[in-house]
């Protein structure tokens, strides 16, 4: 049980670092575009489209890590005032629902990627890349989010505390 969990955690952290690097890339790509336009008179074609693509990858690579760190926005109006048994029940139910949502979307996201590849759908913009490249991070991120929610459910079930509002704001 230990090793798979450690690998899982490592993967989530790795994905988070990739998200962070994408954030830097996002900045540098646009700066490069403007720089080229200023010096050569031509912007770099397709950077705006690439930026959109990076936004999706960054979000879904980073989301499982943000969940683990308790960074996703939660309305804790009610749950903050709960104690003991009921708090535990709510935490388990919320985590299980989260798992269901994420794993369902992971599954249909995978179908969407495969369908998109089968239909040969392209993004009709500056760079004619397959739409599947845009969609692929969704099932990936959702799978890890779903597993992370399952872990939260297990933690809550065994009486542990689930991090809801992170320290990192």
């Amino acid at each position, binding site marked *: 049980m230990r090793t798979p969990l450690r690998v899982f955690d490592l993967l989530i952290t790795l994905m*988070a670092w990739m*998200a*962070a690097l994408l*954030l*830097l890339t*996002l*900045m*540098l790509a*646009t*700066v490069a*575009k*403007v720089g080229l336009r200023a010096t050569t008179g031509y912007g770099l074609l397709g*950077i*705006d489209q690439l*930026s*959109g*693509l990076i*936004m*999706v990858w*960054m*979000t879904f690579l*980073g*989301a499982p*890590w*943000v*969940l683990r*760190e308790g*960074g*996703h*926005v*939660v*309305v*804790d*109006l*009610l*749950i903050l005032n709960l104690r003991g048994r009921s708090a535990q029940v*709510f935490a388990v*139910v*919320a985590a299980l*629902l*989260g798992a269901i*949502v*994420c794993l*369902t*979307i992971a599954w*249909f996201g995978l*179908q*969407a990627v495969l*369908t998109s590849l089968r239909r040969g759908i392209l993004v009709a913009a500056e760079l004619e890349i397959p*739409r599947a490249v*845009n*969609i692929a991070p*969704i*099932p990936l991120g959702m799978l890890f*989010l779903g597993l992370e929610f399952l872990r939260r459910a297990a933690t809550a079930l065994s009486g542990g505390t689930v991090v*809801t*509002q*992170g320290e*990192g*704001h």
Partner: protein
Amino acid sequence: MEWWVFLSTFFLGLTGLMLIGLPVAFAFLAVNMIGVYLLWGGFNGFNQLVLSIDSSISTFILVPIPMFILMGSVMFHAGIAERMIRVIDQWLGFISGRLAVLTVGAGAVLSTLTGVAMGSVAMLGGTLTPEMERRGYARTLAIGPVLGSGALAILIPPSTLAIVLASVGGFSVAKMLIAIILPGILLAIMYVIYILIRVKLRPQDAPAYEVPSVPLSVKLRDTALYLVPPVMVVVMIVVCIFTGLATPTESAAIGTFITFFLAAAYGDLSLAKLKHALLSSTKLSVMILIIMTGSASFSQLLSFSGATGAITTWATALDVSSITLMLMMMALVLIVGMFIEQTSIVLITMPIFLPIIGAMGWDPIWFAVVMMVNLELATITPPAGLSLFVMKGVAVPGTTMGQIYRAALPFILINILLMLILILWPALALWLPSLM
């Protein structure tokens, strides 16, 4: 299915899921899944739901959100913000309630570095609030201006929320960012006026103290070194957008890029700080963007069910004046804003508001600016304003939630006053963008 059955199921489901502690992003996705199943042809529609998640965030229009966050994060972690506060402190000299006024001034300046409220509140609340308490300020006066200043962060560019609102509403990002400048400055002035009047009426709330005098040459030097450069970054962003030299996305990216050099120039950009700034801004960006993934399908489903159309027809047929209708809509946002955070409010209300704005022939930018004031207000309205909790976390031990609520109240009223002013004098919001 009747549209109102659908609508009430939708909102009850959303409320329920949020209340049991499901993060709001996933609460949106959950109700979207149910809506898609019912309205978009069962499981076939799920393919479309996945595509709409991609469409919601894969646009360069939203790029300023992570850029503004990264910029603010680097400035904070490199200690640029602290230095700026010190400079303002030097200039303020002796005036009554000087620390409270300093808080507003520092908040206004910090707001040019950051597009999110929490960072500002944590910083000011962690430094100036204890200082005010030490100097014998009334606790509500030690806390209130911090909360109000956090709200300023969202209103004065850069502002991530302005990008969210413009993107969801289909408004011009450039015009939005320019239009919020005047109301933002006006709000800061209104805060200061309030503090001065209050201290005049109740001198015991802010005991005077001896201020060490700083030579003019030092003030000038520090201003040139520590205040002007970071503010110039934001001025440059705004000017680029205003003159059309670069798009908001380009301006934001360049501004962020320059920030790194600025931080390095101050010699305060260690690798550890850089790492911290990068990770915390990734976290905050993901946190906002993942909520946005529900945006497209949520509003599309509301339209699809017929709810949007029905509500628009109902609202525009109401026998009330245009201003009353606007007030009703803003009251609704205010109430929703008491319970949930801003991005979610935009996602919930804008799909319904947009057709009404169109049908009433309102200037969308005017509406959006009033909405922005309302949204930043949501961070400080009890019971669930995020800034209130941040404040609780950094305040002097023994501070109760009740004291924080009471401290927020005058600043809430000032925000509402600003909204009324903007509703009655749209020119205040529209004049600057009209020059573009």
